[in-house]
């Protein structure tokens, strides 16, 4: 059971934060290209999902899975996008991502007078609290599945 990595994007597509806990394979492209690829994919998939939905949509795109991992997506009303990759044992990470938003991002970034909205998240307090939170998750284990 594990969390592989986490991306946080702002509403303009800038990657504000990235960290990994358990990533065995890299994408083979630079980090900048990876962030652009991730954001571009999310943008397309959200639009696709809402267009092709046979019913009225409520939350929109939530997650996708492969045979090895699941990507979870949470977007705040302010346009912040949280993306977390976990293994398949985690079926729903929405609450986790909501917690990261309201208890970590809002507390340590929004309420930090030095952090300018739109800049990458440099606060050590934020990253250490986030790291502690991820490691304390019931589905996190240092030895990857």
């Amino acid at each position: 059971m594990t969390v592989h990595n986490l991306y946080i994007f702002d509403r303009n597509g800038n990657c504000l934060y990235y960290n990994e806990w358990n990533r065995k394979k890299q994408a083979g492209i630079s980090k900048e290209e990876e962030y652009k690829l991730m954001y571009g994919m999310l943008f397309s998939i959200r639009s696709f999902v809402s267009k092709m939905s046979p019913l009225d949509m409520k939350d929109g795109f939530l997650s996708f899975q492969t045979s090895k991992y699941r990507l979870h997506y949470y977007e705040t009303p302010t346009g912040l996008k949280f993306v977390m990759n976990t293994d398949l044992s985690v079926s729903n990470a929405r609450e986790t991502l909501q917690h990261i938003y309201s208890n970590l991002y809002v507390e340590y970034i929004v309420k930090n007078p030095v952090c300018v909205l739109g800049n990458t998240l440099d606060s050590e307090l934020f990253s250490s609290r986030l790291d502690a939170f991820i490691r304390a998750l019931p589905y996190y284990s240092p030895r990857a599945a």
Partner: protein
Amino acid sequence: MCSSGMADEALFEFLHMEIVSHVYKEQQSGKGEMDNKDRAVCVSVLEGMGFRVGQGLIERLTRDSPSFKDELDIMKFICKDFWTKVFRRQIDNLRTNHQGTYVLQDNKFALLTQLSSGKQYLEQAPKYLAFSCGMVRGALSNIGLDSVVTAEVSVMPSCKFQVVVQKL
């Protein structure tokens, strides 16, 4: 009557952040780099604002209290009642030389807790202490004590306020 819900605290915190940012931007406008004189002006403006707020706050807080026995009594009131109403906790440690100098130590100062829990952003901390120093000075001034209030931080969010009571 004071309701301490989450919204109340956030309102003041955000407003304070913006006040500090505004004062520094105003001072800097058109100049590029800020020198120490500019920084001193900003600190002084913020401290002055805090002073007026402190004066008003203390009237409201001491409305129902009995009068104070002596200087130490006043400082204890600041450390307990005043600090609790304004910063939602008490001062952790009060020291004095019994000759008018007091050091108030708050180990989790409310306006620094979101900044960092160590050394990151330490050089920015003084900007966010000026207003509070003014508040303490204003509060004391309305109780009848003229003072000079300064603050120092070495490891966030712990902070020491030094009050030196001025003898006439």
